[in-house]
């Protein structure tokens, strides 16, 4: 599961249960299976989706990771790959798709736009999909090269291989709260602040 944001000022607790021999062996087996048959839910929206398609096609061949079975229905998917820009109009859709995916599920944010809004610091764009759904791996680039995406996938596999059943917080559903937010509003404003060059590019003449 994604990075659980600790509520303000608090540190998340590490569960006190220590895994025994049997659960670690079982964990190993389960994680090995999960990591090598991740069925992607390709949430391809823009240019990054073209590179995602290139990753899936012959030369880069995503099936080496056991991922060639694109799951266009979220209900059979394990990992959501958001490849491309995410405007506000699409935000409820990706949230719905994420909610429809069964546990265990992971998310990869592919590209600068999905991760931070990229060059589109405009009225229409979500500044990072982590304000909408939890994200496990961010792949930088505009667009990331297929090699970059594959590195992200391998990082995710590594992460999965380190999971344990003894930690129930991994499968905790992170829902939109009754105020309609997924992360606290102050955090959204904070991480959506313009940074770098775009600070200076708000004058139109």
């Amino acid at each position, binding site marked *: 599961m994604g990075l659980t944001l600790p509520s303000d000022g608090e540190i998340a607790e590490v569960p006190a249960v220590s895994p025994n021999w049997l659960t670690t062996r079982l964990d190993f087996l389960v994680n090995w299976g999960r990591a090598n048959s991740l069925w992607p839910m*390709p*949430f*391809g*929206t*823009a*240019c990054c*989706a*073209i*590179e995602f*398609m*290139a990753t899936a*096609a*012959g*030369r880069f061949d995503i099936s080496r990771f056991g991922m060639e079975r*694109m799951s*266009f229905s979220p209900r059979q998917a394990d990992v959501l790959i958001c490849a*491309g*820009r995410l*405007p506000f*109009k*699409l935000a409820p*859709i990706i949230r719905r*798709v994420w909610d429809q995916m069964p546990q265990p599920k992971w998310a990869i944010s592919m590209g600068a736009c999905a991760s931070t809004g990229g*060059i*589109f610091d*405009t*009225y*229409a*764009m979500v500044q990072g999909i982590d304000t909408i759904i939890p994200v496990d791996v961010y792949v930088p680039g*505009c*667009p990331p*090269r297929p090699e970059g995406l594959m590195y992200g996938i391998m990082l995710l596999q590594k992460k999965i291989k380190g999971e344990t059943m003894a930690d129930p917080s991994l499968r905790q559903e992170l829902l939109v709260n009754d105020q309609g937010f997924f992360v606290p509003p102050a955090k959204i404003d904070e991480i959506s602040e313009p940074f770098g060059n775009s600070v200076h*590019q*708000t*004058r*139109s*003449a």
Partner: protein
Amino acid sequence: MSTRTVEMALATPGLDDRGRPSRLPLGVGTAVDDDLGAEHMLVNIGPQHPATHGVLRLVLELEGETVKRCIPHIGYLHSGFEKLGEYRHYNQIVPLTDRTDYLSPMANNVCLALAAEKLMGIEITERCQVLRVIACEMSRVISHLVWLGTTGIDLGAFTPFLWSFYQRERIYNLQEAWTGARLTTSLTRIGGMMADVPDGWEAGLRDFTATFTKTLDEVDTMFTRNSIWCGRTQGVGVLTADEAINYSLSGPMLRASGVDYDVRKDRPYLGYETYDFDVPVGEHGDIYDRYRVRLEEMYQSNRILEQALDRLARLKGAPLNTDDHRVILPPKGRAMSDMEAMIHHFKQVMEGVPAPAGEAYLGVENPKGELGYYFVADGTAKPVRWRIRPPSFINLACLPKLCEGALLSDVIAINASVDIVMGEIDR
């Protein structure tokens, strides 16, 4: 392609007198009672659906399997390009254009540079023109290849996808060697190019043009006389020439309906009038003709590429950029050693290139249709208005008309035949 040379190879039952599979709906000839209590059904496709080629959403009103009404909902990828353009220098808009129609980024770069040059009254060198033609035609090929691959998938053929993506990778390699990026090329600058082609690059492109048509031949063998392909595409999604003009269609959509209009021929830019190539024109305006037109366009692009390569060899060593360093960056070495060049460099980076007050519209023939950039300038270095005339947006607007009365499964084929790219539709 003024006359159809292809006959149906197989005599499938139910061919009409013109040799096309007849598409009589079931129950024709028997009295069907309209008021059997059948209700219209609503089917929602998208915005996240593999066959909509992006985040397009279609709401279909069905009666049985026949589409009564099709309502597209767009805007799911609206990112504010045009607004953003008002906050950028002209040269800084080039990277934005990569990301509108991301299937043919180099052609968009070229269009932007041409529009800005028209606005500022800048002449470009001959070598630059030739390189831009190469960029445009390479884009046409990769864009049509994506169309071919994805349309094949939509209609149940997976192999062409792998073929076309293999060829795309070859162009991507060339693109990368030239611009440093596979997809977001940002190739042009006002008054010239961001980079010249590297040494030996031409040989790579020659190799591509020499062998690439083999793939097209294979596709041709596999599809053009294939009775399943013909059955699903002929006579589906028909638009007459008058309708196509009335709907402001452009590009292969317009030509497949029999209107012989190609911006490259009818208002030439980049010296296209001096190249020898044909414009394929369809006659039935159906999906099949759109397929034939696009396939033929790839052969023609290949021809243009070969001619352009010959010219490039002739122009070896000729200057690439204009020598007016108020609009294009001087070579780095000079900017470091020559005071005047350094000032030009500094001013361009910090202040951009101002355009005189005025406005200019320039359209080019993009793979999807006529892409136009319309600039309104007020004398500053940033445009007052940067308008994209998006070919796929305008082509898609006729989808409700095309789908009316079609079968549900045809909607997917029709949508594929329009060749849309959502980045450009929603901008």
